């Protein structure tokens, strides 16, 4: 999923200042799963903002709603009227959802309530970690299903560097496992350690962000 965390409240309250009627719009997909921008989080943010406004004598009507996804046009139909009536939409979707909402409702002010972080998985309840860098050219077959690009702090294809200590990455030993230690352990258990002796050639990064904004076109599906 795409993971995100809520922006600092100060930043949000400053951002929404001056709007008389604000729609806080949650997203029912990834950010609901990572507990950053679903229905519950919409309620909490709305309550906090109302309390803040009351304390500061700010008059603002705050409406709450959540749709299934903010990255697909069809789901916006359900909240179309609410969006049109609001002065601004405070979107609790990921960056893609915020932008898409703005694209669907041209001329509407759409503001981000979240900081989008990464493509990740639920390591355990309440903990999410980055797994994929969206490089556009998957190498997981070569590394036992562990991505060196996303999980090594330096994206080394021929790791690990000297900063690997007791399974941890020196960049943040508390929180970051050395991706290459994980790769090594996995390849060893798979009996494939010899594969890691081969030098990984210089990479083609053009399939990812370095090739410019990505676009996928499925000719058979295009209307």
């Amino acid at each position, binding site marked *: 999923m795409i993971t995100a965390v809520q922006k600092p*409240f*100060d930043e949000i*309250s400053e951002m929404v200042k001056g709007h008389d009627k604000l729609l806080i719009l949650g997203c029912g997909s990834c950010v609901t799963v990572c507990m950053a921008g679903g229905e*519950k989080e919409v*309620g*909490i943010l709305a*309550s*906090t*903002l*109302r*309390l*803040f406004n009351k*304390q*500061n004598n700010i008059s603002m009507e705050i409406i709450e709603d959540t749709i299934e996804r903010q990255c697909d046009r069809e789901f916006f139909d359900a909240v179309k009227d609410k969006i049109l009536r609001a002065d601004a939409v405070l979107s609790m979707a990921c960056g893609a959802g915020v932008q898409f909402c703005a694209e669907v409702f041209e001329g509407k002010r759409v503001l981000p309530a979240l900081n989008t972080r990464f493509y990740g998985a639920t390591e355990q309840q309440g903990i999410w970690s980055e797994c994929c860098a969206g490089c556009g050219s998957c190498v997981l077959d070569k590394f036992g299903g562990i991505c060196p690009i996303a999980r090594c702090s330096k994206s080394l294809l021929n790791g690990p560097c000297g900063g690997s200590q007791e399974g941890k990455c020196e960049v943040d030993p508390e929180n970051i496992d050395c991706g290459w230690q994980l790769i090594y352990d996995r390849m060893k258990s798979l009996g494939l350690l010899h594969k890691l002796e081969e030098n990984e050639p210089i990479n083609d990064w053009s399939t990812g962000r370095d090739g410019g904004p990505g676009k996928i076109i499925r000719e058979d599906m295009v209307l």
Partner: protein
Amino acid sequence: MREKKKIIAFCCENSSLKAAYAVTDQSILDAIEIIRLPCSGKAEIGLVLKCFENGHPGVLILGCPVDNCKYLTGNVRARKRVGMVKKALREAGIDENRVQMDFISSVDSHKFMNIVKEMEERLAPTAR
């Protein structure tokens, strides 16, 4: 004049609710509005914030003693949730001590009374 809003007491039915039933001092009971929960862990962050939005001066979340939760960790989780509520109150510019977590055994009506009394007195000057 609007009716004076009371302190909300979210009470776990396995402990603090029983303690509340044993309270004989009517003034204590009059000061609060009890909401029965199957576990203090059921007190969601959004729900607690809603109490403040609705004008209640304070919220108590009263769970079982630590290590004595019927659902194992509901009370500990409640304490963490209260931490999140406190953060939201701080952000909104409201005294974070208006929400309070406590752990009460079913036989400790004395502690129950003290907690309510303390919060009531503390919030009295600002209570409407």
